[in-house]
């Protein structure tokens, strides 16, 4: 996969498959500490310790349609090659947390990619799930919770064209807004102007 946002989509699909009702996805770019953290937290069916130990094995999968499961092993490898790591905590019947961390400036860290499309795809295709999307860059935060939107729509589909436009623009603008003013290059240039 070429984007961290695609990995997030993939990991969130595990939560959907685990029948989660509530899924929280967070991305935090801490520029000062030079870390990029991502997490997917769900209240799905969870896994026992033995299963958690096996999910990073590419030759383990809960799926029956093919015999390999590459999602989590790929992401773990990507993180470890960037001075980072992946942690999975899970409790049967309670849910699963996947947390992954990268050195943000590492030359091998793949780009975050199209986070807005990942959020929108998950929301539209799974409107019955309560989604909580969070994106933080240097303390600037975008947060989107799906439940107030679903309540306001009162049965009208997310894929009605005008509703879709509303949601896409809301999420795209939210993600873009967090990136605005967040880059250290920008604050440096402000300083140099002052000088």
């Amino acid at each position, binding site marked *: 996969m070429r984007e961290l946002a695609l990995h997030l989509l993939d990991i969130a699909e595990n939560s959907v498959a685990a029948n989660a009702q509530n899924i929280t996805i967070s991305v935090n770019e801490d520029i000062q500490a030079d870390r990029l953290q991502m997490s997917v937290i769900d209240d799905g069916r969870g896994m026992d310790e033995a299963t958690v130990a096996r999910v990073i094995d590419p030759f383990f999968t809960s799926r029956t349609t093919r015999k390999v499961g590459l999602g989590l092993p790929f992401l773990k490898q990507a993180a470890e090659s960037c001075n980072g790591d992946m942690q999975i905590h899970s409790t049967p019947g309670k849910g699963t947390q996947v947390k992954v961390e990268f050195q943000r400036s590492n030359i091998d860290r793949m780009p975050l990619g199209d986070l807005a499309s990942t959020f929108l795809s998950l929301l539209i295709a799974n409107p019955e799930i309560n989604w909580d999307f969070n994106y933080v860059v240097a303390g600037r935060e975008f947060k989107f919770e799906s439940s107030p939107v679903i309540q306001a729509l009162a049965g009208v589909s997310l894929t009605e064209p005008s509703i879709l436009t*509303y949601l896409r623009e809301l999420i795209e603008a939210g993600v873009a807004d967090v990136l605005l003013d967040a880059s250290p290059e920008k604050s440096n240039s402000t300083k140099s102007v002052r000088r």
Partner: protein
Amino acid sequence: MASIKSLEDLKRLREEALEKRKVKSASGQAQVIVAMGTCGIAAGARDAMKAILDTIESESLTGIVVTQTGCIGLCEREPIVQVVIGDQPKITYGKVTPEVARRIMNEHVVKGNIVQDHVIPV
């Protein structure tokens, strides 16, 4: 803080959508299913999904349900998109690039003509 959209805006859009639906009677609901397993995502399922949603917006297509499924065991044919119209049998498409996704929407979902060159016989 420029483009904050309120839930009030959303409620107004909801009312308008309901009005339009009254005018256009649904002629057999269309369901579009995107396969979102690891194989599908790696092959470009999100781009197919985006092209489907973009077409709904640009062509103002109402009454279409867009949903997802996991890996269906045809990883080498990903990205896979399935279309069900009314009570007709499900059609499975393979190698769905954004371009193919737009054709599926405009030809199959809107006009009812199956895009034969991308059908996977299942």
